[in-house]
């Protein structure tokens, strides 16, 4: 079956999607795993699926990555 990228993106719904609230609870672990050079999607596949589909949480993920890289512990 040929993927129709834009239409399929519009209606994609992954059954393992963790949702916003559950994803938020572990977003710090997800980000630090990525910053450590590991693949967070291996351990948190439901969060990875959610971040691909939820633009708001994806922006939070990008913002947290950026903040940790830029400010760190600030100690």
């Amino acid at each position, binding site marked *: 079956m040929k993927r129709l990228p834009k*239409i399929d993106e519009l*209606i994609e719904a992954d059954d393992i999607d963790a949702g916003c609230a*559950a994803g938020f609870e572990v977003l710090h672990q997800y980000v630090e795993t990525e910053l450590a050079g590991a*693949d967070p999607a291996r*351990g*948190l596949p439901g969060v990875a699926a959610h971040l691909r589909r*939820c*633009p708001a949480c994806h*922006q939070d993920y990008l913002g947290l990555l950026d903040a*940790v890289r830029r400010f760190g512990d600030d100690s």
Partner: protein
Amino acid sequence: MPTETLLSNDPVALIPESGMDAASRSWVDCFKASGNRYSECLARLHALLLRVAKHEATRRSGSLRVHGPEIEDIAQQAADDALMAIRAKVVTFRGESRFTTWAYRFVVFEVSTKIGRHFWRHPPIDMDQKTWDQLPDPLPLQPEHIAEFREVQIAVRRAIDEDLTEHQRRVFVAVALNEVPMDAFAREIGSNRNAVYKTLFDARRRIRASLAAAGHARPTTSVESA
């Protein structure tokens, strides 16, 4: 959306939770303190949250045309509310990450919800308009796939019009089609991000089921890194 999928099936892929780094331990101890030390701890964390909030508000400001004093105001409110949330939640911090990473999560979220308010000052679209013209141009497709594209497009439109509830249709049109920021939309309808996303998720599943019933089943996707 099963929350059990949050549980790691490959623990080695996650940062070990054993032990807490010295800086994080210092923050936690600080929150257990009293008097001046506690006040100084809150002030230091607030200053850090404010820096993160200003940076994050600036990072997000472009598309919403938010500038100068508004960014300062958003950042101040976000830092204030994030500090309140952190004070309430700090007892749940177990050292799964650095304390600051755990804490920045709250201020990033607060910036997102607060900056969403500004979307409605310059909304780019009529939310009641079904912007079907914004659906993808089939030109990138090979000619033999254009007919399929048209058939699926019609089937999707029919599913949205006939199979979604009124609320699902409103959420799908606003968030998926018109790309209204979820926090802005949630605020507009007196809801929250989590509830809006759940509705969007259910709408997408219903559309996919409708397509499958009409002989246009769409492929599922594998999990990829965000």
